[in-house]
């Protein structure tokens, strides 16, 4: 009973904690609290490792608005989650559901933990049995070994290295016991083990002693235990490891190349995250102040921001970056298109825009863009022909 007391106490404490936790009362959450709670569990569809609650991406904004309207319409949290899964797929949830195939994600670590624990128990019990129980030693074994010890290391010990080792170990064991260096239980177990093995050698029996008998299932159990523990540890690490924030790479410490940054900036701009994209272009420009692509696209995004906020100063700033791009690489076609577009649509300088669009078309710009640029060139020529400065402001 004394042995089980700590286990009993632990079980009572844990059960008490579970009951106390489940009985804890709380106030009825408001609509905003529920929206926040659900949005925290929903993945931002266009970000990495961000919830819809944390992200300001347009898709996350739309999801938050939709959650709010459904909560206000009386949907339960589970119904809202089910709706989002229905539209985006299971991966929209940051925490996998605890039903269906997804339940495996929760069940497998638990099963792994139990299996690992069981494996360890089997292994430890085996070790204990070996230490405490030891092999069965007959009286014949004891007298055989005693005779060998009395006969100065025994007959044949010179040729048999293991026999010599076992006899020496037996003698050492007695000395350690006399000196009080070993407990009685260990002494008995080891003595029986050495005696049985030494007797087997003396009889000329080369079979491994009973304690060394291989149990076919043992490696399997140990292997399963180790694998299960590794799996559980892996899951635990994955769940508790720090999350990446936008701008960080997968490996965290590895520096992104300019090309990767430019590609990511373009993707961010495509998702409407202009500020994030501008920050990335700034990083590229910091490393390489003559990077025409970063300069041109940074300028273009600033110009877009200037237009949507009707801020002429921002448009001028955007133009200055585009002009820096042209100065850095006069053959970069996109910069010419951007300059032409700003001159035509913002500065009403159609005559100035024409050579820029022509530079794009003759400079091998993106084929997908060619028809668009041709349109803009035609518009600029028409404006010059009619005497107008430029077309209506455009995006």
């Amino acid at each position: 009973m004394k042995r089980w007391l700590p286990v009993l106490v632990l079980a009572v404490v844990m059960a008490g904690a579970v009951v106390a936790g489940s009985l804890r009362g709380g106030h009825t959450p408001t609509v905003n609290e529920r929206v926040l709670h659900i949005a925290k569990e929903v993945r931002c569809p266009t970000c990495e490792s961000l919830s819809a609650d944390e992200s300001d991406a347009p898709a996350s904004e739309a999801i938050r608005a939709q959650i709010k309207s459904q909560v206000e319409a009386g949907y339960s949290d589970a119904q809202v989650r089910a709706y989002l899964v229905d539209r985006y797929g299971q991966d929209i949830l940051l925490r996998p559901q605890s039903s269906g195939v997804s339940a495996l994600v929760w069940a497998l670590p638990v099963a792994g933990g139990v299996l690992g624990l069981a494996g360890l128990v089997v292994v430890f019990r085996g070790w204990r049995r070996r230490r405490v129980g030891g092999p069965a030693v007959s009286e014949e074994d004891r007298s055989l070994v005693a005779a060998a010890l009395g006969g100065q290391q025994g007959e044949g010990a010179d040729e048999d290295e293991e026999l010599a080792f076992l006899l020496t170990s037996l003698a050492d064991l007695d000395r350690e016991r006399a000196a009080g260096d070993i407990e009685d239980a260990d002494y008995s177990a080891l003595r029986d083990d050495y005696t049985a093995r030494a007797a087997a050698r003396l009889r000329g029996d080369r079979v491994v002693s009973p304690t060394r008998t291989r149990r076919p299932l043992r490696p399997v159990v140990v292997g399963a235990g180790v694998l299960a523990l590794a799996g559980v540890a892996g899951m635990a690490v994955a769940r508790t490891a720090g999350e990446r924030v936008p701008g960080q790479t997968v490996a965290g410490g590895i520096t992104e190349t300019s090309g990767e940054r430019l590609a990511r900036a373009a993707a961010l701009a495509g998702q409407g995250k202009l500020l994030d994209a501008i920050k990335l272009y700034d990083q590229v420009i910091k490393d390489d102040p003559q990077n025409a692509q970063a300069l041109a696209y940074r300028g273009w995004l600033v110009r877009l921001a200037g237009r949507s906020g009707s801020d002429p100063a921002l448009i001028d700033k955007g133009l200055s970056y585009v002009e820096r791009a042209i100065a850095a690489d006069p053959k970069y076609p996109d910069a010419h298109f951007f300059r032409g577009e700003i001159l035509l649509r913002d500065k009403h300088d159609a005559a100035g825009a024409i050579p820029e669009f022509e530079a794009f078309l003759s400079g091998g710009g993106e084929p997908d863009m060619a028809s668009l640029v041709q349109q803009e060139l035609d518009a600029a020529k028409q404006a010059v022909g009619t005497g107008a400065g430029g077309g209506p402001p455009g995006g």
Partner: protein
Amino acid sequence: MTAAVHEQSGPVDDRPRRRTALYAAVAVGLTIALFVGVLATRKPAADRVAPSRLIGRPAPDVSGPGLDGSRFALSAQQGKYVLVNFFATWCIPCVQEHPQLRLFFERHQAAGDAAVVSVVYRDEPADVRRFFDERGGGWPVVEDEAAKVDWGVRGVPESFLVSPDGIVLTRVVGGVSDVGLERLLAQADRALRGGRP
């Protein structure tokens, strides 16, 4: 204390290890070949068809005020294919795909067999109006907040082809091209006709 025991060891046979190395090499080789194969057979970015939970299901409605003030409802468009296009004026691929959408729209406007509707994705109405004034495009442009999530849209541009009986057929992520849309339409037409007696 002297609790150590000797381990008996026999001659080491290295054949299994060699075989393991061979198997590992074959596995790595096959994986690389598969990887290269997948990458080599991927469709180009334009008109990339992407999976969606909505495919094969009735299209969620798109309804709301249009640029001209009239009310639009996708449910009223049955009887012809409809391309539901989510876009924004600040999105460069959306600007690039616009002339392609125009070509597609103008070809099918006369025939009356397919229509286009654009759904505004976080944008200013004035910018959208200016965008269409400058670049043309006579199809309905609708403001519908709920549609973005109802259609599971992750970014712009994204387009969905809806069948004449209101079933979502295809989702295209990224800019569309006139040629690509015609191909999708032809495929859908063949599938629909093949399914009918």
